[in-house]
């Protein structure tokens, strides 16, 4: 069966002649180009090629997005300082275009942190429920729930946010409905599975001795969780939250559908807002490729790329702390 699936690999079947004992030992047993180079080396080259493709994909993504993202500063003379500190975004103003992306950078960070603040207690709480409160049946129920939540595509989250959450907030809480709050809620549900899964792994990998030792000293379950288990699992729990934040920071469509996409810094969580991803999503198709406005969108993409490197470094730092 595997041969139908991996047709490429069957091309490189080594052809071997039958080894007759009459052939002198030297010819039988020493490496010769004929039999050695056949299938073996080609197979090796093939898989190394796959690894090389992965490396070159990563490098070319970095280089292409890097150079493209810097063009607005180098070629179009947009000030980097203005880009990251100014709140004025008026790229279409013919007389005096302004390229202050701070509202979107702020929006991205705001919505990411708020989503993490909502998702972290829920996710870690869910993990503790599965591992400490009801280890027998809790996991059986919650685990598939988490897996199904992962399976829901982000546009579906966005669509439900748009048709249910936005009107609900407009009528019950106030404002337009399209708001930082809506974005936060949608994102926190989206990153909940990530946080819960890794937090569950963290809690269940703790040694049994920790729990037993604490209970033996007469501590209650809550005291054990709070004073022993959570501190012991802390680096991994933080990793869980950071991974969730990385996902929230890069999420585009679901947020874009509920956040309102305005160019001002929000003053309350009921205000509409915008993030780097939502501005890219909205304007990439509408702007002329190579124009200044278009190039600034690529600069925002570069910020996303840099942030995802930053998240990786943060996670590495956390996991190096875990090993100690």
């Amino acid at each position: 069966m595997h041969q139908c699936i991996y047709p490429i690999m069957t091309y490189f079947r080594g052809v071997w002649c039958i080894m007759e004992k009459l052939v002198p030992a030297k010819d039988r047993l020493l490496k010769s180009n004929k039999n050695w180079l056949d299938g073996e080396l080609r197979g090796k080259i093939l898989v190394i090629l796959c690894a090389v493709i992965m490396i070159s994909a990563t490098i070319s993504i970095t280089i292409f997005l890097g150079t493209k993202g810097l063009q607005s500063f180098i070629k179009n003379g947009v000030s980097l300082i203005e880009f990251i500190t100014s709140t004025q975004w008026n790229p279409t103003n013919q007389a005096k275009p302004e390229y202050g992306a701070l509202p979107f950078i702020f929006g991205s960070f705001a919505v990411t942190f708020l989503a993490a603040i909502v998702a972290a207690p829920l996710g870690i709480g869910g993990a503790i429920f599965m591992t400490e409160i009801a280890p027998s049946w809790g996991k059986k129920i919650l685990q598939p729930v988490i897996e199904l939540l992962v399976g829901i595509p982000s546009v579906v989250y966005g669509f439900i946010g748009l048709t249910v959450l936005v009107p609900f907030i407009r009528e019950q809480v106030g404002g337009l409905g399209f708001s930082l709050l809506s974005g936060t809620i949608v994102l926190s549900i989206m990153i909940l599975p990530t946080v819960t899964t890794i937090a569950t792994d963290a809690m269940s990998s703790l040694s049994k001795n920790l729990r037993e030792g604490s209970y033996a000293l007469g501590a209650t379950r809550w005291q054990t969780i709070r004073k022993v288990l959570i501190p012991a699992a802390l680096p991994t729990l933080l990793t869980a939250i950071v991974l969730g934040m990385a996902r929230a920071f890069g999420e585009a469509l679901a947020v874009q559908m509920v956040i309102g996409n305005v160019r001002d810094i929000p003053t309350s969580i009921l205000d509409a807002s915008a993030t780097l991803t939502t501005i890219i999503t909205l304007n990439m198709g509408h702007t002329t490729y190579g124009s200044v406005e278009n190039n600034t969108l690529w600069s925002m993409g570069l910020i996303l790329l840099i942030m995802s490197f930053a998240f990786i470094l943060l996670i590495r730092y956390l996991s190096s702390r875990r090993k100690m």
Partner: protein
Amino acid sequence: MVTAFMEKTTENQAVQSSSQSHKESILKVNNLEIFYGEKRAVNGISMDIEKKSITALIGPSGCGKSTFLRSINRMNDLIPGARAEGEIIYEDLNILSEQINVVALRKEIGMVFQKPNPFPKSIYENITHALKFAGIKKKSKLDEIVEESLKKAALWEEVKDRLHKSALSLSGGQQQRLCIARTIAMKPTVMLLDEPSSALDPISNAKVEDLIVDLKQEYSIIIVTHNMQQASRISDKTAFFLSGDIIEYDYTEKIFTNPAVKKTEEYISGRFG
């Protein structure tokens, strides 16, 4: 226990002494050292292995006997950081040389492992797997080799009606004989057996032992074993390994009745190990 093999060896005395006439050797080991990273597992051993006879390697766990066995068909190459120095001469070539085509070498020096490890395929395919790779494609030829090697492995009668059933459906002893059959099918000259019956029940063990003795007619066999009785029952020569050295290497009967070194006597009489 000791008396049991004493009886047996005295019985065989006559046969043994006549066969003690020097046999041609198949492998010559010269000052072989094997390292795992910085650690030396085998310290410069030298020995000649006789053609068409059974050589047993005994000694406590970690004494280097399995390491030595696995170096003879270069299976140690799989272990990161393992390297060997010295010589193992086979057919006038040093097996340890960079120039050796290990794939061709392993066809001539086959190996059977401690735990039966048949492929999760049919009994028939377990034997033909390597044959097909070696270029034998004709169905009639394959059928012939399968039957021949299963017969040699004393398994044919038990499995001839279910050749296309999964090899995993066989008992442990049958699986091990299948592994031997699959090695025989490659027509090796040397067979390396790494504690081939230690994972088996006594009845299967006895069958595998009988088989090994039969195989001596055609193959040079080197067997690692923890079982002193097994070594004394089936082998012609025995090497006693301790901490990476060969303490004593002689005819089995000599080792078990009148060892030259005190350590050997202590080990085979069960005082340590």
